[in-house]
């Protein structure tokens, strides 16, 4: 065995073992002794509060953008547009409104539109909205993804006829809630107004972001 070449095979074997043990460490899952217990308590996880999640992407894409092939998450920073936002919203923007989180929906390379989610304060609990817009910023559709309202109000919020009133409207065309109250029972007015206000606000945020070329954080593809 020569002085310089002898140890090399052993070194490579040791290196191989090291890599192997690292892979084993990274992939091995020990038997779960609590599987039964975990199965019994399998309830959906509790959500973290602040950011409103997009709960059913596939459902919403099928509903609003049937030809969609993918979406890109985008964040537009609006903190530099406070004056314009204050003017258009009629109030100073809240802390969460300093950034707009949206999803760009695409079919191959063509932009089909945008989709946003927003949590608004209903009369009896939070209401989560999914708002789809076309590339010009007009509403393609609205869906309530979560609410905890009494049945009469819930039926209105989920009814296609009522949600259809938003279709085709832009931020400037939704000026007040009144037209949305026709045929809506009085007990549903507070929550219906919250939905209208939420959609209106979101469209304004989108409009300001699009017009001003607000800086975007790096996009995230789905």
């Amino acid at each position, binding site marked *: 065995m020569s002085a310089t070449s002898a140890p090399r095979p052993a*070194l490579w074997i040791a290196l191989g073992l*090291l890599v192997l*043990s690292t892979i084993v460490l990274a992939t091995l899952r020990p038997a779960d*002794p609590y599987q039964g217990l975990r199965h019994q308590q399998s309830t959906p*996880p509790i*959500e973290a509060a*602040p950011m409103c999640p997009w709960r059913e992407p596939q459902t919403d894409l099928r509903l609003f953008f049937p030809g969609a092939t993918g979406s890109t998450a985008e964040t537009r920073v609006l903190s530099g547009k406070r004056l314009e936002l204050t003017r258009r919203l009629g109030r100073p923007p809240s802390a969460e409104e300093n950034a707009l989180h949206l999803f760009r929906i695409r079919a191959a390379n063509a932009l089909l539109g945008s989709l946003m989610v927003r949590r608004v304060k209903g009369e*009896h609990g939070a209401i989560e909205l999914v708002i789809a817009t076309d590339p010009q910023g007009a509403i393609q559709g609205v869906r309530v993804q979560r609410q905890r309202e009494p049945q009469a109000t819930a039926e209105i919020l989920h009814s296609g006829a009522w949600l259809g009133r938003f279709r085709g409207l832009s931020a400037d065309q939704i000026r007040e809630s009144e037209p949305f109250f026709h045929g809506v029972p009085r007990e549903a007015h507070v929550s219906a107004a919250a939905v209208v206000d939420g959609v209106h606000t979101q469209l304004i945020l989108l409009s300001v972001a699009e017009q001003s070329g607000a800086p975007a954080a790096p996009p995230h593809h789905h």
Partner: protein
Amino acid sequence: MIQLTLRNLWGRPLRSLLTTGGIAVAMAVLLSLSAFGEGYRRALGAELGRMGMQMMLVPLGCPYDAAVRVIKGKTLENSLPESATDYARRDAAVAVAAPMLLASVPRPEEGRTDLWAGIDRTALELKPWWRAKAGAAWFSGPDSVILGAEAAEAELRWPGDLLYSPETGRTLRVAGVLERSGTSDDSLFFVPLPTAQAMFHQPGRLTAVAIRLRDPSMLHDATERLQNAPGAQVVVLTEMMGTFLNLVGAVRTLLLAIALVALSVSGMTVFNTLLGSVLEQRRELAVMRAIGASRGQVFFTVGAQTAALILVGCGGGLLLALVLGPVIEGTVRHWVPLAPSGNLLAFTPGIVLGSFGLELVVGGLACLYPAWHASQVSPALAMRLE
């Protein structure tokens, strides 16, 4: 001598780098797993400590399952008769007996679960952190609700607002919102106990009775007496903690075995590196011996190389553990049942020094043969190789 050691290591930078890398990985695994064990024990202890009780009466069935579910604010399939509370309160050793009814309402289409807790005023004696961030700290009437901090944020509720429970058809008014406690209570909707019993059709029934004793030394006797409560069994939290530490210990033993494999591999790598280095340096070693270096000095040279490799590797391993620790914690957390909230990694000085020591021992053992082999090089070899 030190200069020679360093020159030998620098002479083969890739080999030295790979060897220290192996040591670093082994060290990082060992450190992270040891820190996880310590962190889990601390976090579990802290969580149980925040409960402010020593034992619980739970329905008949698996007591540990029941106790953990109560601590985590999850519902039970069985229930206790309300008389269990009176039974506990009559015991001379019991300072506080707080009845509670927990109910979870899954809302799968929304990917969440509403967690309701019916309590009475005695519960406050077990929740020292119970402070209202807004509104009142107690119910204003049977139709009032107090929200944990996260529940209030998720529902956008504030004192005075309404909160509707679609599943039970009950409308409640928010009396207060609690400060964040860092416990599972942050996600709960608290209602008066009779309201919860009515909402979930459990009149006169409870999920558990939390008990604090007047004197913890009365635990043994009180446990024996309370075992006789009708339809109930006692779970002592320290026993529960021990049981869970044992269960987690079994998982940890398996993981430590993997860490020891990594440690052994790193030892073999050190052995291989040093042996290769010694074989390559036979001529230099022979010259050293020829000009008067003792066998001990040659042995020390190889030992110093080992120490340098181990120290650099351990330093790298510590950095690796600190960087990858949160990732490992996130992965291991999924294996652990009902992992306590809070940091599960505790890098204490004892753990760091212990891991360093173990790695040094392994390295020391690995260098014995190469160092001995080096010390046996004959001075005459210098002439022959010339």
